[in-house]
């Protein structure tokens, strides 16, 4: 791997973590973020490594735990944070909130709040590329809990029946809210649940950004060549609760510590950079400081942004229609 690429991934992962930590403060200490807030801390390597493997024009779509994906595709942190604070300058002008970020310029089709639903949209995005005869693919992210909903099964099945270029990226963080895979899924080997639909699948250390990148690159190549949908099970862990207010009492004592202390994605990459790439502590510190400044600036921008105009309520109910009440 190129050193510059690894440093960029390091920066992206640190950005996600600092961004999420700031969101937590803005919610719990300052009361400036409301509603649901699903943090991505611990899972950074999945978004960074896999989106790092796509080419521009390839689609990205995910569920409600979407801040990491938005920042990785390159959405402006200030506008993302403004969205979380319900401001007019937010990525959807304060309409979507934390769960519904979007950036179509970067072919990021959004976060979606209904478990599993966006898998069907992903099939449609891939269908459109197949229909037009391009070689673009669609990366779709979803959790372990989502493998139990009908949308999941219908979407994997149709993607395979129609041989569509979808990369199904399962972020297996062991829990859907408070329910573990063991308590929710008749088949606890979730890789099998993907391969049941007759597509190639691979289990990946989702805490290792390089492995995520390599596995996703191979999957994208195959789909691009017309080999149809691919399945990747990323083994990962969410450090925080499902959403703000979750005290995670359902987790066995020591489980979090084990993941954080032994497998943390940022620490893992940091070790690679220091040991194998002659990067110095100072260089990494400089990146961290840069990111801190970026998050500070984002927070300032969001905080100083105006609220949405109340008369915008009816805008875009129908595409292109502004201000009309039906």
């Amino acid at each position, binding site marked *: 791997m190129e050193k510059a690429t690894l440093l960029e991934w390091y920066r992206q992962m640190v950005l996600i973590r600092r961004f999420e930590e700031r969101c937590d403060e803005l919610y719990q200490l300052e009361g400036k973020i409301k509603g649901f807030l699903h943090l991505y801390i611990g899972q950074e390597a999945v978004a960074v490594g896999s989106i790092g493997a796509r080419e521009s024009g390839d689609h990205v779509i995910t569920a409600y735990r979407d801040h990491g994906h938005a920042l990785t595709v390159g959405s402006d942190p200030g506008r993302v944070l403004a969205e979380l604070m319900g401001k007019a300058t937010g990525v959807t002008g304060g309409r979507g909130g934390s769960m*519904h970020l979007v950036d179509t310029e970067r072919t990021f*089709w959004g976060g979606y709040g209904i478990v599993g*639903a966006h898998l069907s949209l992903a099939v*449609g995005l891939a269908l459109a590329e197949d229909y*037009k005869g391009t070689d673009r693919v669609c990366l779709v992210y979803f959790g372990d809990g989502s493998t139990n909903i009908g949308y999941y099964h219908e979407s994997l099945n149709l993607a395979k029946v129609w041989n569509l270029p979808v990369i199904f990226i399962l972020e297996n963080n062991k829990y859907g809210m408070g329910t573990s895979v063991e308590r929710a899924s008749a088949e606890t080997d979730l890789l099998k649940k993907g391969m049941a639909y007759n597509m190639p699948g691979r289990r990946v250390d989702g805490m290792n950004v390089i492995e995520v990148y390599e596995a996703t690159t191979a999957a994208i190549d195959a789909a691009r060549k017309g080999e149809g949908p691919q399945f990747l099970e990323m083994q990962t862990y969410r450090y925080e609760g499902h959403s703000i207010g979750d005290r995670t009492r359902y987790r066995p004592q020591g489980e979090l510590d084990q993941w954080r202390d032994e497998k943390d994605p940022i620490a893992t990459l940091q070790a690679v950079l220091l040991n194998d790439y002659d990067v110095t502590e100072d260089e990494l510190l400089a990146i961290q400081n840069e990111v801190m400044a970026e998050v500070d600036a984002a927070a300032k921008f969001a905080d100083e942004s105006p609220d949405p105009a109340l008369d915008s309520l009816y805008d*875009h*109910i129908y595409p292109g229609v502004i201000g009309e009440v*039906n």
Partner: protein
Amino acid sequence: MPRLTLREAISEALREEMQRDPNVFIMGEEVGEWGGTYAVTKGFLEEFGERRVRDTPISEMVIAGAATGAAMAGLRPVAEFMTINFAFVAFDAIVNHAAKVSHMFNGEIKAPVVFRAPGGGGKQLGATHSHTPDVIFAHFPGLKVVSPATPYDAKGLMKAAIRDDAPVMFIEPVPLYTSPRVRDDVPDGDYIVPIGVSDIKREGRDVTIVTYGEGLHTALDAANQLAKEGIEAEIIDLRSLQPLDLSKALASFKKTFKCVVVEFGHGTYGIGAEVAAQLQEKGFDYLDAPIKRVAQAQAPAPYAGALEKSALPNAEKVIAAVKEIL
């Protein structure tokens, strides 16, 4: 001008739109090889091929979701539900995704998808297969809902639906598909009937009948009989339930001071309830008598022929309602 049945008119609209725009395609259960459950797409597979006439598995969630996703990426899908009863399985994809993306993402995404849904009862298919649930879909901002009663309107509305940037639920009254009495002069080639514009189907001075779909023909039967007794009913065909155009209904009501609403769905929370509410709000001073509703009985549709018939609107019930308020 050729005289077409409702089914032939819809079929012609679909064919012409597919010839006009290469991005229009059809997907659904049995739309291809079978030729469409109600034969609306008969011959389409032969004419347009498998890429544009796509048989799906029995997977309503992903039919609706993937059609929405493909629309988001720039295609113009026409997704067929075998019947509207099965759209309930896809309710989330329709009302929470197709209908929401434009507003929730602040106009950044649009989903120009048409959901075709044959609906209606009276065919002794039992409670699960005999719904007229049209009004439910009209409840949600973001979705357009149309239901034609004549072949002329059907062709023009289908073309409008396919070209509309909003998602459209296109509800086709099955009992009218091949009915010889609804045969109509339908122009060859291109014309549009705009969505959200109601139509006066019969002029009269004594009472206003507001209806749509199958109800139009029941209302016309009633009006013909009433005319023999010197009672002239004016009939407004809503054609679209969302956006709902009550301008002609209100103008007519201000002339007749009396109104009966005829709908084939259940009456509770139905179209009649909405029409009555709006007419009294906007025309209270013209109210000479209660606004009457003739609707399907508030009971699940039974199988037995006479029993089912007794639950549905008919001309006698409309005549009785009119006479009650004259």
